[in-house]
Structures are given as C-alpha cells and as structure tokens.
C-alpha cells in the first residue's frame, strides 16, 4: 500500500520536476547574464561595444584590457590586496580568542557581549566617518593604507566573532572535559581538539572578511588619495565617463572583481556557512 503511494507521488514530482528544473536554469541564466554580457563586452572593440542592437558576434580583441592596464591600475590593486589580506589576518587574530571566551568557557553575560559586537555593525559607517577623517588629518594618516587596515578590521571583527563563536560552540563540552581530565594543557587542547572543528569555520570567516574588505568603497574614497587608493576607488574614476570606453570599463570591472569571484567560486560551501554567521550546521 505505502509502496504504491510513493511511486505515484514520485511520478507526479518528476512530471512537474522537468518544468521546475527548466525554470531554475532560466532564473540562473538571467542572474548571470549581466556578468556574461560584461565579460563579452570587455573583449569587444570600443566601437562594437557601444552598438544598438548589440553586436554579439563582433570580433574579439584584448584592446579593452590593454587600455585598462595602461591606465595604471596596479598600485591600487596592490593596495586592495594589502588592506584586505592584512585586515583579515588581524580580524582572525582578534576574533578567535574572543570567540573562544564567548563559547568554550563563556564569560558571564556573554549574550550581551555578542549583541554589543553585532550592534557595532548597525552603527552607520557614515556616523563615524567624520571623526575618523579629522583624526587622520590631525595625525597625518590620510592616504595611509594602515588606517584602512584598522578600519576594515573593525568592520569585519563583529561578523567574525559571531561566526567563530557558533563554530566553536559545536565543540562538545564533554570532549574538552575529557581532554582536561587526560591532562592536556590549553595549547594542546586547542591544537588537537578545537582546531580540527573550527578550521573550516576560520576559513569561511576569513573568506567573508576578505570579500567585504576588498569591496569597501566609502572609507577608501574618503580616506585615501593617490598613494593608498584601492581598486574600488580606482573604478570610481569611470563613474562620470559616460560609457565612452565601455569595453575598458567592463574589463576594469571584471579584473577588479576577479579575486573575489575566484575565491567565492572556489569556496561556495564555506561562503554559505559564513554568510549565515555559522548558524548552519
């Protein structure tokens, strides 16, 4: 009896299933289409890039990329790499001990501390921008990449603490107690009991921090100039150019997005876990 029921529902699902799978493919294609269009345009000559109707089959060329790289983007890309990588390292160094204190052996009122961290994310960035600008002006830190590194660290630290805490919370207390009964010290416990559980968590936290730092524009635009300019600020140079060099704009956008695209594609599952603040088991 129950056997026939499953077969029937199975058949019904398969019938509608093809349509739903098709729909999924269509939606996915629609979402990726703008990026594909950007990629195709970046390989077109400028006169083909700005055609209506679109010149899809126009010959491909690297001119867009050539003129982008001729405009000197490397220092800003190097700045972005420096700021994103160093701030990510700092975030993890600060967040891991904090998350440990909030989960494995929670301090009193640990939920209040957690909410304090999250609440700093809700403090609008613009409300702190002016004092930071004045401070930088006063101390001569304007256009200095280290100021950005510190700010990006504060921007991502709360998220990392939340994520790492929920990963650490998955380490069973029993195992920790067992380790301490067996005479393992703190370092040893961290290395052989905690680390294996949280290494994927640290990786996903680092990935998210890297992406958000790499993408940040407001701080970078206000606080950097020529020396410490980041890649997104470099891109804003194209904002007013009314698409006159569309292929170049597309090439620039793609190149600047490439590190994030590669990192994101390579670590899709970690991205998911990270985005949900580690709440996904």
């Amino acid at each position, binding site marked *: 009896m129950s056997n026939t029921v499953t077969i029937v529902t199975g058949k019904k699902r398969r019938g509608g299933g093809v349509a739903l799978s098709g729909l999924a493919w269509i939606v996915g294609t629609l979402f990726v289409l703008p990026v594909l269009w950007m990629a195709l345009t970046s390989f077109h000559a400028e006169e083909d890039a700005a055609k209506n109707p679109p010149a899809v089959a126009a010959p491909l060329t690297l001119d867009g990329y050539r003129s982008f790289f001729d405009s000197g983007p490397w220092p800003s890309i190097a700045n972005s790499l420096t700021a994103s990588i160093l701030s990510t390292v700092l975030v993890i160094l600060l967040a891991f001990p904090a998350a440990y204190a909030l989960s494995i052996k929670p301090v009193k009122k640990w939920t209040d501390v957690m909410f304090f961290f999250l609440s700093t994310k809700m403090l609008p960035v613009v409300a702190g921008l002016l004092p930071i600008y004045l401070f930088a002006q006063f101390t001569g830190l304007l256009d200095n990449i280290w100021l950005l590194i510190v700010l990006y660290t504060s921007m991502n*630290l709360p998220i990392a603490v939340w994520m790492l805490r929920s990963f650490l919370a998955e380490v069973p207390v029993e195992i920790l107690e067992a380790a301490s009964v067996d005479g393992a010290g703190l370092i040893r416990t961290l290395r052989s009991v905690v680390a294996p559980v949280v290494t994927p968590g640290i990786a996903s936290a680092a990935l998210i921090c890297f992406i958000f730092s790499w993408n940040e524009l407001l701080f970078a635009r206000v606080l950097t100039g020529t020396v410490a300019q980041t890649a997104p600020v470099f891109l804003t140079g194209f904002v007013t150019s009314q698409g006159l060099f569309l292929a170049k704009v597309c090439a620039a956008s793609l190149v600047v997005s490439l590190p994030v695209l590669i990192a994101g594609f390579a670590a899709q599952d970690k991205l998911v876990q990270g985005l949900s603040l580690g709440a996904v088991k």
Partner: protein
Amino acid sequence: MSVDTEARPSGRHAAGPPGSQSTMLRKTGDWARRAPLLPALIFMIVVTQLPFVVTIITSFMDWNAYYPDERGFAGIDNFRRVLTDANTRQAILVTILLTAAVVLISLLLGLGIALLLDRRFRGRGIVRTMMITPFLVVPVAAALLWKHALYNPEYGLFNGLLTWIFGDNAPQPDWISNQPLWSVIFALVWQWTPFMMLILLAGLQSRPLDVIEAAGIDGASQWDIFRYMTLPHLRQYLELSALLGSIYVVQNFDAVFTITSGGLGTANLPYTIYQTFYTAHDYGRASAAGVIVVIGTIIIATFALRSVSSLFKEEGR
C-alpha cells in the same frame, strides 16, 4: 568516544554532581576567562565608539571647514536645520523605501529560487554557481555595469534587446532618468538576491527530511508541508537574512554614488551625509545627521535584535 564516556562520570564525582562545570569554570578564574575577549572588545570600543562620541560633540557645534573662524557651540541648531531640511527628509524617505524594497524583493525572490534549487536536478551545481555570481562582483563594478552596459539608453543591453525584439521602432526608454530609484533598487536586488538565496538554501537543506517524507506519505500536500513544516523551520533563516541584508542595504553608498550620484531624488542618508561632510564641509550638520541616523538605527535594531535572539534559544549552552 569510549574515552568520553569513561571520563565524564569520574569528572562528575570529583566535583560533586550538579555544578561540575561551573566549579571548574570558577577555578579557572574570571580574569583568565575574560582575557582572550579583551583585545577584540577594546579594539571595537576604541575604533567604533570613540569616534561616535566625537560625532555627538561635533553635532552640537558650528563647524564648517570653509569658515574656520566661526567654530563654536551651536546648541541644537544643527539638529533643527537637519530635521527641517527638505533634502534630509527626502533622504530619510529614500533610505526607508530603498532598504525595504531591496530587502523584501530579494528575500522573496531568494526564497523562491532557494526552493527551486533545493530539488535535485541535472546541473544544480552550475545553476547555483551562476546564481552566486552577482554577489561576488565588486559593488562599484556591478553599479558601473548596470549604469553603462545595461541601463544606457543608447547602447545598453536592455534597449538593445528591445531593438532586437521589436525592430527599429522599438521603445528606447531612458531607464535611469525615468525611474531613478527603481533603477537603483533593481540593481541592488540583483546583487542581494543571491545572498538571501544562499542563506535560505542552507536553511532548507538542514530540514529533517525523514519527517517531511513521513508527512508526505501521510497525505500532506506540498503546500501543507511548505506552510506548516518548511516555513516555520526557515523562520530563523528568514530573520537572519533580513537582518543582515538590512544592515548592509541601509548603509548602501556604492550603488547610489555610481548609478545616479544621488541625483533625481535617489540620495539616501549615507550619500547625503557623505556630501554634507565631504563636499560641503559642514561638519556640524553632517554630525547631527549622523546622530539622527544612529538614533533611528538603534530604534529599529532593538526590534531586530530581539528576533535574532531566537538564534540563541536553540542552543543549550
């Protein structure tokens, strides 16, 4: 595992039954437990709270970098000026509209797409990768893409497609001029739907499948399963994605700055404050606007945080 079961009872006996863990903790000492937390906590207070104190002080001052001699105490003048200013009120309205529209639309779209991708079908991995792509494009780059390659009335893809379909007499709307706010909203929905979809998909895949199968065998319809089992399970994930999405979209600067440069009635609060301070150099007024934004955010966040606290209830610790 055997070590675990052996060690636990002996630990219990040593410390006395109910409070075994808490006595252990007390022995470690409060400070030893707090120490690892302090660097992060102090860092956050110094970098995020101190500047805000300065913002509050500045908000009560006359301070325009163009007129350095007129610096002084202003009382609540800045606040009065900000709150009676039509531009600021417009910016508040735009911020609310923009955030609500982007979060709601991308949440609903994200839910629908997550349900589509929750099923097994050929190429699911590829479709998921395609879906994630918008989220991974640098926001400024994405905004440039929408402004120049898609929305442009002369050679943008949208009008190009219209020409393709309807021929030379096809309508060629100027998307950004006609619907400036929706142009920004649409581009942001494209960027944020993948974010919502990813979190909700993870939520869907953490459902207890055996229970759902049992319900199906017991004759529950697909809709019933969705309404009474899937949706309640997803509640946490919906709340979390709405909260995180709001945090980021409220503060959006890149899209407004790039697509419309705040023109045509699309200036939101972050953009307006940026202009007041960066272009007009009116520090006092920018600070007052900042303080008002923070007060508004605190009010909204209080409600938001209450719902997120359900994330903690699930845990036994």
